[in-house]
């Protein structure tokens, strides 16, 4: 046995430490970590506040410019409104109409034809969604009514579908520089979600504001590079 880590461990009474000769996984959370997590649930930490403030200091434009330089392939700029945090997602995989994106710290989101299909790693994720009926109208820039299902893990760990009926309306068409896009609005009941999309003339969603779910609220998405 190596004496040094043993001694160090003994000195670090407050937290557990461990070794594994096969080096599987990233280590399990320590008791201290759990207490910290529980406490942070009760009392919002100053650290988190400070981080959020620091993040605010960098503008979304700066984040976007840096991302386009450092990430190859398709890039999204996303703002989680509830957290006030803006981050970039790089495309990680593509499966038919479905594209998976991930942040540098491996949080994920999945878009299907530009419509939010799933999120991963946000704690209260959208596990999956059925958006085909809405997508057909929105991409064609047509009004109408569509059914939609969003699924979540409830507090006990069981997947629950939330069925919705959505009314799709056509908004104004805006032109900025070389791009002309039509605003499409999707009002979903009974959850009172209001999704909006900017659809270009090729029938692609170039920017959107979509409802992830309760607690997480809205995600604003912009395609930086397709």
């Amino acid at each position, binding site marked *: 046995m190596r004496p040094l880590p043993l001694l160090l461990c003994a000195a670090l009474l407050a937290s557990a430490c461990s070794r*594994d000769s096969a080096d*599987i996984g990233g280590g399990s959370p320590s008791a201290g970590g759990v207490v910290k997590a529980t406490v942070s*649930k009760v009392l919002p930490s100053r650290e988190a506040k400070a981080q959020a403030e620091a993040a605010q200091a960098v503008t979304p434009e700066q984040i976007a410019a840096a991302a386009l330089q450092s990430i190859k392939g398709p890039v999204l700029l996303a703002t989680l409104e509830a957290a006030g945090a803006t981050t970039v997602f790089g495309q990680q995989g593509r499966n038919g109409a479905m594209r998976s994106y991930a942040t540098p710290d491996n949080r994920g989101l999945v878009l299907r034809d530009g419509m939010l299909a799933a999120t991963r790693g946000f704690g209260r994720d959208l596990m999956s969604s059925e958006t085909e009926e809405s997508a057909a109208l929105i991409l064609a820039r047509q009004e109408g009514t569509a059914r939609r299902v969003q699924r979540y893990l409830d507090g006990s760990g069981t997947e629950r579908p939330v069925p919705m009926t959505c009314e799709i309306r056509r908004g104004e068409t805006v032109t900025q520089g070389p791009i002309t896009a039509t605003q499409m609005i999707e009002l979903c009941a009974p959850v009172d979600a209001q999704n909006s999309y900017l659809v270009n003339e090729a029938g692609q969603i170039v920017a959107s504001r979509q409802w992830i*779910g309760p607690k997480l609220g809205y995600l604003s998405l912009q395609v930086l590079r397709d």
Partner: protein
Amino acid sequence: MAGNLRKFSSVGVIALLAGTAPLAIGLRAGAEPLTSFGYGTFGTPGLIDMPTAETRPDGEFGATVAARSGDTRGSFAFQILPRLSGALHFSTSDDLGPGGTTRDDRSFDLHWQVLEEDGWRPAVAIGMRDILGDAHYGSEYLVATKTLSPRLRATAGLGWGRLATKGGSGGGTRPAADANGGLNSDAWFRGPVAPFAGLAWQATDKLTLKAEVSSDAYLDEVGAGFDRKTSVNLGADYRFNKMLSLGAYYLHGSEVGLQFNIALDPRDPPAPSGLEKAPLPVRPRPAPGADAEAWSGAWSADPTARPVIQRTLAEAMAKDGQVLEAMALSTDAVELRVRNETYDARPQAIGHIARMLTRAMPATVETFTITLVERGMPVSSTTLKRSDIEALENGASNELLARAEIGEAGAASVTGAAFSPNDDLYPRLKWAISPYLELSNHVEGQDQRADVGLQFKGRYELAPNLVLSGTLRQKALGNLDESTYVSPSPVPHVRSEFAEYQKEGDLTVQNLTLAWYGRPAENLYARVTAGYLERMYGGVSGEILWKPVDSRLALGAEVNYVKQRDFDQHFGFRDYDTVSGHLSAYYDFGKGITGQLDVGRYLAEDWGATVSVDRRLANGWTVGAFATVTDMDSADFGPGSFDKGLRISIPLSWASGKPTLATFDQTIRPFTGDGGARVEVEGRLYETIRDGHVGALYEDWGRVWR
């Protein structure tokens, strides 16, 4: 494509899209049982001393301390089923003991909401307090609670026993309590009956005010000087957040008390879907026409292909917290033997591997079989079609489940190819050092004591199914060694000398065992554990379990030869040795409820049976209760009469939002005696394999795409 939209100012886009839709959604459907605004002084749904017909959130675990001058009551309350709750109380009352001494009392309550509130009909509950033993609080009640407005609830009920000591009438004489601590069933709902009533008003979201007319005469307390001026009690609760609340109450116009409550709602974890990183996405195969070479299967003739694939996969799985123990690969199918060391929801482990396989396997491999291995024993095989994984990625989890086949894990691979074990995994050494806290058992006339120190846990795996493991403890400070408790038990002291073991803290060997696991035949699992099994016993323990992968029923048998260890918990033994053993039946009733019946011989050579019921949510949170009745005389058992208790297991992933197999486990026994005691052995078979079998896999399947 050139959809470069930098010219759109982000801020402009967000402003254009921003709306003001209010957020409101209910993910729970259907009528909910009436959940109480707060807690009574018994830690269960109630006003102050009087009960209500409300419940707590399903599965909630609450801890409460209610104290007034000279009287403290600590309670642990479990909402065992949506409408059934149980509570254990530990109370200390000055001057109420024999001859004016301090009285330490333990009691157990059950509360069952018979009817939910529905329209004009109030919720109705029936309950029993202090079911066992000398029953200082022994009482039963039938109570109704009605919502008058969303913030105002009225309660009225009838009480028996202590709840009929004021204003009681009729019913004749109530039979006396069982002095030996057995069930007081003779007395239940017998004797005089008295009405009680009360109101609870949720003044604000945080503050609840309560008033009640009590039917409790406080006879013992008045005898010791308590001044009961009125039957009216007043109280207020202040809720800091979902977990913590503080209450104050004014009892019978004479005394003020304070109450502190901590509640953990298992259905309200900080991060229900977890904070772990996003899984790797599926990589679909090219169309057969587009890449004829990938689809030719020519790779299978190349002997270097499999080792490369296996090594790459093993590395990716190790990063994901899983161990690839072996792989069998044919041209069109692959089977993996996987030891999941990270995800308490096994389907999440399966889902991660399925997606890794879409990235690692040649295009011709269409069938993926993922065999979960626990302690070297293959426990179940889940077979998925690669085309289904490609087509259903990030869809409804039950669509994939409908196409998955879950079956018995055979010794040979379903692919027809031979398993290639992963080299270099064994021997494997794992160890961890952590602090520990040990509390003394609650014993009449003894103060609560505690030790803290360092704990070393080590595992040396010689092979997947052959493991040497041990736990050492070194006390740093504490006062457990000051206990003066001497076991008064007239039967062999198989458990009642716990205090003698707790006194020793100098590098104790908590356990040190060599354990072997095996699959002797289809549906059968076996275990042999030898060594220092637990702090009080060493010896040999053998177990066999029959459990088809999709069966609700499991049957097991266990035989142990054990010898009592020396108090110092080093390597010596005391004189007592015995053979104990059980036949066990386990049944999965669905909805996470498991029942267990063990019949056999216990450590003090008493014969009897243990009944246990456990309830587990998909997120791993488990609460359970158990009771053991043996042929030992209840007077020989001592206070409490027979062995029983409550247990709880909280997955650390629930609290932290990060996947881990670690849990926080606690068993609470109101009394420790020598009857109905079993030797503790780490890694009993049923608990080892159950999470990998069909019942649990179905329950947890919602995480397969997580």
